[in-house]
């Protein structure tokens, strides 16, 4: 199952459409990390609303992805983690250290606007 990646202005938006296998997730990671450079994106949003399980592998992959994207100069926000999934993740002992999270796509976009604007100011 491929995850469509949308380019919207300075951002890339990947919205996961169905449960992903490990290979799908790794492919998503590779695609996003390479496209961030291709499109000179400043932010990436990964929408995980449809995922009803985030196990250690998924968490580890998303975190690694966010760190790689950071190294390539962009921010990552994971949006749409469901209440049950969040609960299960903390029970399992999983955290997304160093990764921004937001309630949904809308909040994610607001957060990215906020953060990338801040960066702009600092850069100037």
């Amino acid at each position, binding site marked *: 199952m491929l995850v469509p990646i949308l380019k919207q202005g300075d951002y890339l938006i990947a919205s996961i459409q169905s*449960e*992903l296998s*490990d290979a799908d997730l790794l492919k998503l990671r590779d695609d996003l990390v390479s496209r961030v450079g291709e499109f000179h994106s400043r932010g990436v949003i990964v929408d995980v609303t449809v995922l009803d*399980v985030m*196990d*250690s592998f998924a968490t580890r992959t998303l975190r690694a992805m966010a760190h790689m994207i950071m190294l390539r100069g962009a921010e990552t926000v994971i949006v749409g983690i469901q209440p*049950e999934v969040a609960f299960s993740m903390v029970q*399992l002992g999983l955290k997304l250290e160093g990764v921004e999270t937001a309630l949904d796509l809308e909040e994610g976009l607001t957060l990215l606007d906020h953060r990338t604007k801040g960066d702009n100011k600092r850069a100037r």
Partner: protein
Amino acid sequence: MPDELCIPVSSEIDIVTARQKGRELAARLGFSNTELTLIATAISEVTRNIVEYARRGELCLSIVQQGNKRGISVIASDRGPGIPNIKLAMQDGYSTGHSLGLGLPGAKRLMDEFEIVSEVGKGTKVTMKKWVQNNVR
């Protein structure tokens, strides 16, 4: 869907199948949404354990009854290399593969009962159970 089924596990794609089937079976028992997620996640972890360390194995799901409580039983078994030091493997953060090392101890926290039997060179068998809350308390 029968009360009992086994899923052959030989690739990472089977992980998704295993947790979906587990969730379906557990839903029939009346677990809450949160509990369904916990069960599916635990199944994901033990199934991945098979794929990562033993390459192939089997995941069996069944409805179990003990006295007047009902629950789901998950048995993940393989004929892989086995775990030399179970105590160490059950410690948070320990991993010989490339995972976070939260897999097995994490799955244990998500379920009510957890048992692991392993013999080096012969294989590993993880048995987990979760009971429907109303009947336990």
